[in-house]
C-alpha cells in the first residue's frame, strides 16, 4: 500500500486556471466568428461591389487570390489577431513566481533548525499556493506532535507524590530518599547502613 506510485499533484489553482483557459478559448472563438462574419459582409458590401469611396483598398480591382477560402483565411487572421486572449506567458510567469517563493521557503531563517543544520525544503513549488488555502489538516501524533522521547516525569509511591509537573524528575534526590528508606530498613534489620550509603554516593 505504500508502494503506490506517487501521484502527480496539480494545485487546485492550476486546475482552475486551466478551466478558465478553456473558457477564454471559447470566448476567443466566438469573437473570431463575429469578426469573421462581419468582415465577410463588409467585404461583400464595400469591396466586391466596386464601391468607389474605398477604391484605395483595392486600387487595381483584382480578384482576391488566396489559397484558402475567404472565410477560413480571415478566421485564421483574426485568430492570430486575438491570440492575446490566451495568456501563454502567464504559465511561465507563474513558474518563475513559484520558483522565487520556493527559494523564500528554503532560505527562511525562521524555519531553520540550527541543531541539525536543517532548512525547510520545498519539493514541489507549484503547491505553494495550496498552503494558503488549507481547510483540513491531518496530522500524525507520535513524532509529529510529540518529539518521541519519553521522559520519566513524576512518581507517586505509596501515596506520596515525587517530582513536579514543571521540573524534570530529580533522580538524585530520589536516590537519596530511596537510600534513606533502605537505610532505615537496614538499620532495623541490623545491617551496616554506612555501607549502603557509601554505595550510593
Amino acid at each position, binding site marked *: 500500500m505504500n508502494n503506490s506510485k506517487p501521484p502527480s499533484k496539480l494545485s487546485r489553482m492550476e486546475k482552475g486556471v486551466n478551466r478558465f483557459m478553456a473558457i477564454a478559448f471559447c470566448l476567443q472563438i466566438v469573437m473570431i466568428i463575429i469578426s469573421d462574419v462581419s468582415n465577410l459582409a463588409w467585404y461583400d458590401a464595400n469591396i466586391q461591389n466596386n464601391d468607389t469611396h474605398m477604391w484605395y483598398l483595392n486600387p487595381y480591382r483584382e480578384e482576391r487570390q488566396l489559397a484558402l477560402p475567404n472565410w477560413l483565411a480571415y478566421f485564421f487572421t483574426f485568430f492570430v489577431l486575438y491570440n492575446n486572449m490566451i495568456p501563454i506567458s502567464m504559465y511561465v510567469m507563474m513558474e518563475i513566481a513559484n520558483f522565487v517563493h520556493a527559494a523564500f521557503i528554503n532560505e527562511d531563517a525562521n524555519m531553520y533548525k540550527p541543531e541539525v543544520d536543517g532548512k525547510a525544503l520545498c519539493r514541489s513549488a507549484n503547491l505553494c499556493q495550496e498552503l494558503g488555502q488549507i481547510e483540513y489538516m491531518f496530522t500524525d501524533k507520535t513524532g509529529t506532535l510529540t518529539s518521541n522521547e519519553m521522559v520519566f516525569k513524576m512518581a507517586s509511591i505509596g*501515596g506520596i507524590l515525587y517530582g513536579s509537573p514543571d521540573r524534570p524528575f530529580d533522580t538524585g534526590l530520589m536516590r537519596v530518599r530511596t537510600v534513606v528508606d533502605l537505610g532505615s530498613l537496614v538499620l532495623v534489620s541490623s545491617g551496616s547502613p554506612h555501607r549502603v550509603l557509601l554505595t550510593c554516593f
Partner: protein
Amino acid sequence: MLHDYWLTLALCHTVSMSTVDNDASASDGAKAAAAAARKAQGLPPAKFFDGESPDEIAFVRAASEVGYIFEGSERNVYRLRTPYTDPDQPADSYTILAMNKFDHERRCMSVVVQCPGGSIKLLMKGADSAILPLAANVQDAAKHQKHVRLFAEQGLRTLAVGVKELPEKFAAQWLRTHNEAASNIDGRSEALSAAAKQIEQKVEILGVTAIEDKLQDNVAETIATLRAAQIKMWVLTGDMVLTAITIGYSSKMLSPDQTLLKYELKPKMRAGQNRARLVQQLKEDTATVSAALEARSNGGSKASFALVIDGRALHMLLGHMQRTATTNGIEQNRETDAKDEAMNTMHSFVFLARLCDCVLACRVSPSQKAQMVKLVRNVRVPGTPWYRPEPCTLAVGDGANDVAMIQAAHVGVGISGHEGRQAVNSSDFAIHEFHFLKRLLLIHGQWNYHRVCKLILYSFYKNGCFMWLQLFYSFETVRVRLWCIHHCRNALAFTVW
C-alpha cells in the same frame, strides 16, 4: 516500598541492553561516531537500552539513575545493581521465573521473579484502570486513583505499579499452570492470559508512574493559531484511544469544554450488533450536533464537539462495501440496498466529522489514514453548493506509516526526524519541527496565494486589454465599422421611425 517500586521498574520490562560496538548500523552515524570516540579513549563501549516500547526504556533509564542499574539479561536472568549491591561485586542476578506479556485485554504485564535472597515476588505494571481494581486494599487504590487523575490532567502517560510476595509453594503451583498453558498448542495465548489473571490478584499497589512524551516546542500555540485560522485538525494515530485523548488535551487539540463523541467497538458484542449500534449512534449524534451548531451560529451556546473513533469502528462504518460484494442473482437486489446503505453511512459519517472541530482517529492503519484523507477530499456532503471546490487538505507526518496519507492529500508535509526519510521523500514540503507549519501555512502559503492570484488576474487583464484593443481598432478602422454601424443605424432608424 520505594525499593520495590524501583525494582519493579527495573525488572518488569522487555528492554534489552545493546552495546553500539556490536550493531553499529550505518544509519546511526552519530552513535557509531560516539562509540568510536570512546574506543579511542580506551573506555568500554557505551551501552544503550533497546526495546519496543519507549516507555519502558524511560523506566529503565530512570531506575538506573535512581540507583537500580539494569546491566543486561542472559536468557531469564536479569542482572541488576541496587543500592544493596556491594560495588566491588558483580551485579545481583534476578531470575525471571515467568513473564506474563502485555496484552490488550489485561492491559498490564507482570513478571515472577526470584530475588537473590530466594524470595519470590510478582512484579507488575500496567494501565491504571487495569491494575487499581486488583488492589488488595481498596482504600489504597482510591488514594492512588487521585494521583492518576492528577497526572492525566497534566497530560502525562500513567502506569500503575504493583507487587505481591508469593509463598514458595503457591509460586511453584502457579508456575506449573503457567508452563502447562505455555505448552498448549491450541489457544495458547488465551490459556496464558487466563493463567496470568489467576496470579494477578490482590496485589499491593506501590504507586503510579508518570511519563511525559514531550510535545515538540510550541505545539499547543501552533495548533491554537491554526485553529484560529479556521483550519480543522484531524489527528490520525496508531496509538490507543486514551493516550490520544490525553495528548489531544495537552496539545490543546481538544479543550475541556468540548463534548467528546466516542465511537468504539464493544468487545462483547457481535460484529453485526456493533455495527448497528454505531450506525444508530451516528444518526443520533448527527442530529444533536447539527442542532447544537445551529444554536451556536445563532449565538446561543458555545457548543463544540470532537469526534474520537477507533480504527476498528472506522473499518466497520466504512469498510462495509467489500463484505457485501456477492454476485448471486437473488442477492443482487439486497446488495444494491446494502451498498446504498453503506454509502449513506459513509456520507453521514463524513458529514458528522466535518461538523466537529476536531477528529481523533486512533489505532488506524496507514491505509486507513489515506482513506480518511480521500473521504474528506472526495465525498461531497449533501447540501454543498456545486461551485464549491473540494476542500483543500494537508497531511503532516514523520514516518513510513504516513506516506500513504501524505500522497493522498493535496499537500503533503514531511517532518524530518528520528524515523527516517520516507515521509520526507514522498512529501511536497519538508520541515524539521511541527511549529514551522504556522509560518509555512500562514505566511508563505498566504503570501504566495495572494501574489499568484494577482499575477493571474493581472495576466488576464493585460491580455484582455491587448485583445479588446485589437477588436476596437478593427472596428474603428473601416474594415468592419462602416458596414456594422451603417446597418445598425439604418435598422434603428427604421425601427424608430
